[in-house]
């Protein structure tokens, strides 16, 4: 396992080995948390589309494209723990976050959706079809998930890398 070494030259003392082990432990827990969030997002979005039959609009699909791979990437980054996972996961999460924010702005009407002809099976991205607890919309949940993953990954990078 490529544990980040804190010792530069010479034999590492017991305390530095301990510190390194703690960092590895923390890194694992945080990446695991990222995996949990991504998995909940995966199952949640599938619940909306497959069980509740809410058709995903185009912007939803773009967010799914950047969320679903994270489930696999994080899982493989956990066994064995490979903090290099940040390098691959962070860009996906940031791009997905961008789509989520854009979707939220379309949803709330800050960005007007261009008028398009109705097509068979076409779903409007600005139509609000679900509000949990009276205020929680799907794009909002998407923003929260992507944001949480981004924050956790940044914490991992700050805390667990030298």
């Amino acid at each position, binding site marked *: 396992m490529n544990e980040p070494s804190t010792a530069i030259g010479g034999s590492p003392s017991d305390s530095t080995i301990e510190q390194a082990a703690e960092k590895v432990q923390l890194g*694992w827990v945080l990446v*695991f948390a990222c*995996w*949990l969030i991504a*998995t*909940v997002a995966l*199952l949640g979005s*599938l*619940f909306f589309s497959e*069980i*509740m039959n809410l058709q995903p609009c185009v912007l939803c699909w773009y967010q799914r494209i950047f969320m679903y791979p994270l489930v696999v990437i994080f*899982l493989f980054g*956990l*066994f064995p723990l490979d903090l290099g996972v940040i390098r691959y996961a962070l860009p996906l999460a940031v791009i997905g976050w961008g789509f989520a924010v854009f979707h939220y702005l379309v949803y709330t009407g800050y960005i007007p959706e261009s008028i398009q002809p*109705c*097509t*068979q099976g076409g779903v409007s991205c600005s139509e609000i079809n679900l509000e949990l607890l009276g205020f929680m919309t799907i794009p909002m949940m998407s923003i929260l998930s992507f944001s949480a993953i981004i924050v956790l990954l940044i914490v991992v990078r700050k805390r667990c890398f030298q």
Partner: protein
Amino acid sequence: MKKSYIVVIATILLVGVFVGAAVVYQQQQVSESKAISSQFAARLAPEYAATMGDPNARVTIVEFFDPACETCKVFHPLVKQILNEYPGQVRLVMRYAPLHTGSDYVVSLLEAAKQQGKFWETLEAAYDSQSKWAAHGNPQPKRLWMLLEDVNLDWKKAQDAMQSPAVLENVRRDIADHRQMGISKTPTFFVNGKPLVQFGYEPLRSLVEAQVREAY
């Protein structure tokens, strides 16, 4: 290793919650659709709607259909097959649910053909030529006239009838009913007022069978 257990347990828990929520949600949907259909029971099979089979049959299949819908086309011969299995015991009532663009035109054409006693012939012809007039993205319902050669329809009379208040009113009532009942998919079946919960030919057959056994 302990950590892999954590991930396995978390996965089982999450998938379990997903499946549990799905079951609960679907049960709610079923009881909701049963409540709706009992609320609309009296209006399900109105007098004016096209009917196939013995009018005195004690089992009634109500089908909300769209002439541009491929699944309706596939189901049409299957439903007729079910009628043939129970001669005199089951009848079929057709209600319009024109969900596709252009279907509203074809639906009024069907209603006009019904006045000439040519509903079923016209419907079969419309299904047979469906790919020619109901292309997704570019439906051309007016082409259907050219494809109705085998149906001896009085064109002039039918075209006038399509604008008549009687035709428009029947179509309007069907559309109002399917909207109020929240029907968003075609075909949607009811057998003696009971909704077909799980979609498919076999479920429909067994629902009809159960109703026939109950009624006779």
